[in-house]
């Protein structure tokens, strides 16, 4: 890549100094820290030979783990959509007592390290926990079940929705809603017909970010998940299990699929976002 760029060098006479230095340092940095290790991840599964790859692909436990990761990440992101929209709406459009506090708290899941989140949620929702105990009386078990994974992923995913939608909602003129109100629309119709469609692209993008994060999430989940193979074992945990079994081929195959999945997911979200943006809100902007 370096030679290609240097040989083409579009502005051979670019007077601004520093091109070479910046180019070389960036290529070195990106090469060593990102490109090299990812190359290893992409090449390694094929290096083990076709036998190892087919064996890995026939591993039912791996597919079960991938399914658990995908399904829980999807459900968590889906539940986060109404919750996140509600929070954003009150933050932006309602005179909310303690607005600044709520605004600061929204970023909490970003700030708290995942291991802390993990042990905290496991204790909170555990059989003896502040929330776990009353819920257990109602016959609801959150910790060490699929529900536990969803709760953890909802926690880490919530800021993605709010922070994606918030700037867009702020940018929407309230006059538009007032106009709809004057034209006789009920407040629900206004929300449903006028506001939500404009927020759709941002919501989809927030959903996609939360979903992609959820697929790969590890630290906040393993403490509260039951980690039972085929049921509550997430794909990143299976990577760790395979590594501990010294099964590099197995670990690498799952990691590779995980990487491809999250890339596809992000690319899909980007595409969907563009399409939604073109199709639905072309008139608004």
């Amino acid at each position: 890549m370096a030679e290609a760029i240097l040989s083409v060098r579009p502005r051979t006479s670019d007077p601004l100094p520093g091109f070479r230095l910046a180019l070389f340092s960036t290529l070195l940095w990106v090469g060593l820290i990102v490109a090299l290790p990812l190359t290893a991840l992409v090449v390694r599964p094929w290096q083990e030979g076709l036998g190892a790859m087919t064996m890995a692909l026939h591993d039912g436990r791996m597919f079960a783990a991938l399914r658990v990761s995908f399904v829980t990440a999807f459900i968590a992101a889906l539940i986060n959509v109404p919750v996140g929209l509600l929070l954003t709406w009150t933050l932006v459009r309602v005179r909310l007592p303690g607005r600044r506090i709520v605004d600061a708290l929204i970023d909490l899941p970003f700030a708290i390290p995942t291991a802390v989140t993990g042990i905290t949620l496991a204790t909170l929702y555990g059989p003896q926990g502040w929330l776990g105990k009353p819920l257990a009386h109602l016959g609801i078990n959150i910790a060490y079940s699929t529900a536990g994974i969803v709760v953890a992923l909802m926690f880490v995913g919530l800021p993605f929705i709010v922070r994606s939608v918030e700037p867009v909602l702020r940018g929407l003129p309230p006059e538009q809603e007032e106009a709809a109100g004057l034209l006789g629309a009920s407040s629900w119709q206004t929300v449903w017909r006028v506001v939500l469609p404009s927020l759709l692209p941002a919501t989809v993008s927030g959903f996609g970010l939360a979903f992609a994060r959820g697929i790969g999430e590890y630290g906040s989940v393993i403490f509260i998940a039951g980690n039972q193979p085929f049921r509550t074992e997430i794909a990143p945990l299976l990577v760790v299990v395979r590594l501990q079994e010294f099964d590099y081929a197995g670990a690498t195959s799952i990691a590779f699929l995980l990487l491809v999945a999250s890339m596809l997911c992000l690319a899909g979200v980007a595409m969907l976002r563009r399409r939604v943006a073109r199709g639905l809100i072309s008139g608004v902007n």
Partner: protein
Amino acid sequence: MSAFTRWSLVIATWLIVAVVLILPPLLVLSEALRDGLPTALQSLADPDAISAIRLTVEMTVLSVVINTVFGVLAAWLISKYRFPFRGVLVALIEIPISVSPVVAGLVWLLLFGSQGWWGAALDHYNIHIAFAPAGILLATLFVTFPYVTRTILPLMEQQGRDAEDAATLLGASFWQILWRVTLPDARWALLSGILLTTARAMGEFGAVSVVSGHIPGMTETMPLHIETLYNGYQSVAAFSMAALLAIMAMTTVGFRAFFENRARRATLAGDAGS
């Protein structure tokens, strides 16, 4: 909006915030202080705990310094020049954000583990990267890789390069332009990127866990030590460490919000003036 709607929205919001966002940090504090503050502080003075705190601080400082220097240069390159494969470069820099932390750790084992490409060769020279602090540093670098570039890039692209071109005509060198022309304008964004990198670096668990070897007193960072304590039934010590780490990370993020507000106000003031 009717008063009824407004109040239901307010109550619903505060209920969600209380259960989802306020209970967890309260629980951390209450578990840490269950046997009183002295016990909690004592557990943090344990040699393994001190070593974990030290390792976390070292790893954080190193990753922040390295990723800031290279991140600024990368942002400069991408924002000030047009060249082939520029899009590929931007995409490559973005990748680590969407990679599972576990995978971010695994890739280093594929290079430097005993079954990795170069693990055996390096072992021959007695250089250990996997299961040693060097591996932890590499994993942290990978995970926190994009933040500085991502935060300052939009601003630097918006700036264009008129000021820089003018400085070049006046005979300024590259470093002079970077320090005196480009960075002063981007300083709040840069600070915000650095603080974000710091918060992510000290809290990283999955990636570090895969390459660490979990040796208390040697290769355990604060998040890993929390796990060890938790699994060893030392709940008070685990939550004391968790409280300390959470406070460190939340302070960092809090500073960031403060500076971002400032930056926003500075931009608004600047726009109004011009």
